[in-house]
């Protein structure tokens, strides 16, 4: 067994000296995801907040036809922009986001008590103007219902008769659960990281060793081949676990940069939770390492191994994709499914739900079992002479 750790020790030392491996597994992998997450998210929320608070300056075409309406808009904080000569053109050219146009029939319709038509010009396919459209619409609707109520009241009718049903939405989401909607990306990043970070070590220690022809002298040493394989597999697992820890650390730090409180949600991710997630997903590191090593051991060369790896990346995406398409309430049986159980547990925990300990234990136990089974398969592959000489 000592010699197994000799192999492990050598593979760790060898891999840590490989700049490409270190860069991929220990720097780019763990840091890139969280940075992407924080920057993207910060950008989106910043933009939303800006749009929501920015003073509206909207051109009103034919403003003189509806002085009352214009006055209402101005009282409610909207600035009157200069009306362009060709409103459609200026929307198309994106010189204005939204333009209000009072139709020529407006004064007549108004006097007749018919619905007076106000046109709202905008390009809905431009997603960034959605907030502005909503704000202008709200103002116009406010004016419409205010005038409507006054008209009904003048006729001696209670305006509340108009409102047969009143919808009262009670939002029971907590700041944590709203934050969880955003952190739902976390298991995705973690799972992908688990499969990507060990890749170069797995390839280098198997297909790479075969390609450099150092596998042959290695196998002439007096230790069972499964021990050689196990040492290599452990090295890949160790790399994955280190990378996973770094990813979680980067996420905890990164989440601190998001101005969550001002958006009324809480990003529920602290050091204790990160440690818990690390422990929960550690068995997946073994699964990933065994899977990668098995695949890479089949390959004749580095390049062939890399071409298999493209497919492996799809595996960790499956549970998250499934959860996106088909959001489910976690059930006990799901804890026996590796990857799915960890994704669910992480998601529930960041939503502020405490998951029972026996669920977590079931998840860990089943994933460890699965990982060990895969590792045994990988180890048995090295017993086959064909695999070693497949390129000679």
């Amino acid at each position, binding site marked *: 067994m000592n010699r197994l750790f000799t192999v492990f020790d050598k593979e760790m030392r060898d891999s840590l000296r490989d700049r490409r491996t270190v860069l991929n597994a220990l720097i780019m992998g763990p840091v890139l995801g969280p940075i992407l997450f924080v920057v993207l998210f910060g950008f989106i929320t910043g933009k939303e907040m800006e749009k929501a608070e920015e003073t509206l300056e909207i051109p009103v075409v034919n403003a003189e036809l509806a002085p009352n309406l214009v006055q209402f808009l101005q009282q409610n904080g909207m600035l009157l922009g200069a009306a362009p000569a060709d409103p459609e053109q200026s929307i198309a050219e994106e010189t204005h986001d939204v333009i209000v146009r009072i139709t020529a029939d407006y004064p007549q319709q108004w006097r007749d008590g018919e619905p007076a038509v106000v046109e709202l010009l905008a390009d809905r396919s431009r997603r960034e103007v959605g907030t502005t459209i909503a704000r202008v619409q709200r103002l116009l609707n406010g004016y419409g219902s205010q005038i409507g109520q006054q008209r009904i009241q003048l006729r001696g009718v209670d305006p509340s008769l108009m409102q047969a049903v009143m919808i009262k939405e009670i939002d029971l989401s907590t700041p944590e659960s709203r934050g969880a909607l955003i952190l739902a990306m976390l298991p995705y990043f973690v799972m992908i990281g688990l499969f990507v970070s060990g890749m170069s070590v797995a390839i280098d220690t198997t297909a790479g060793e075969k390609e450099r022809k150092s596998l042959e002298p290695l196998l002439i040493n*007096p230790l069972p081949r499964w021990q050689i394989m196990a040492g290599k597999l452990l090295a890949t697992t160790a790399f994955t676990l280190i990378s996973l820890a770094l990813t979680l650390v980067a996420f905890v730090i990164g989440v601190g940069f998001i101005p969550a409180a001002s958006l009324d949600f809480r990003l529920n991710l602290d050091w204790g939770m990160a440690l818990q997630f690390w422990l929960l997903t550690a068995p997946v590191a073994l699964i990933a390492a065994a899977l990668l090593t098995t695949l890479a051991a089949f390959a004749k060369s580095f390049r062939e191994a890399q071409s298999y790896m493209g497919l492996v990346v799809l595996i960790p995406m499956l549970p998250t994709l499934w959860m996106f398409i088909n959001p489910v309430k976690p059930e006990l049986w799901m804890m026996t499914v590796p990857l799915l159980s960890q994704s669910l547990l992480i998601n529930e925990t960041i939503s502020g739900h405490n998951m029972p300990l026996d669920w977590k234990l079931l998840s860990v136990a089943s994933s460890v079992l699965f990982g060990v089974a895969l590792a045994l398969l990988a180890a048995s592959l090295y017993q086959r002479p064909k695999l070693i000489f497949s390129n000679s």
Partner: protein
Amino acid sequence: MIVTEHLQKSFGPVKAVRDVSFVAADGQITGLLGPNGAGKTTTLRMLYSLLPPDAGSIRIDGIDPQRDALKVKTSLGVVPDARGLYARLSARENIAYFGKLHGIGKAALEQRIADLSDQLDLHDFIDRRTEGFSQGQRVRVALARALVHQPKTLLLDEPSNGLDVMSTRALRDMLLRLRAAGHCIVLSTHIMQEVAALCDRIVIIADGVVAADGTADELRQQAGTSELEDAFVQLIGSEEGLLA
């Protein structure tokens, strides 16, 4: 001592080794001489238990490599054709890795590496990473690595391929020293001068079959020529591979 009898090995339709029998005695250097593709490397791989023979038997000091691979490996030192050093490890680390895999303790290993670097003159580059080593440096490190556990039997596949004069001398001196110490040494080669200078016994392999077996003198007599090279051509029946 190595005894092989009627070894056979095919890869699919290709019969790499068809009938190889020879004896390599202790205290002797046995050369497997043959053109490229004659089956020398496959024969060696069967000897060091990496390939199971399809038929025939092998005994290394009385042990069957297929039945007790681990035991055979403890007494075998091998320098394969490709050398296979780890480029990111220093020469010392390369040697120490295999030493540890043979279960040698730390202090003994340090002493052993110091001795080997004296004998093979590794001092100038022992702590450098092997990336960029010359062929000669590679072979010397690979040889030190093969000898780290003081094996009784040494197998070398084309050891002098691409070597400069100094490395060839270091290799030759080392092999002669090991022979004097009673080790059993088998090397494969297609270089005539090497066989003439080193080998006590020559096994000529052509097309997977042993074409002749004996000392240099015996082979010359058998072929009725005064030059070993002519004997070789005569015995394998063609000039193929001699210049490779």
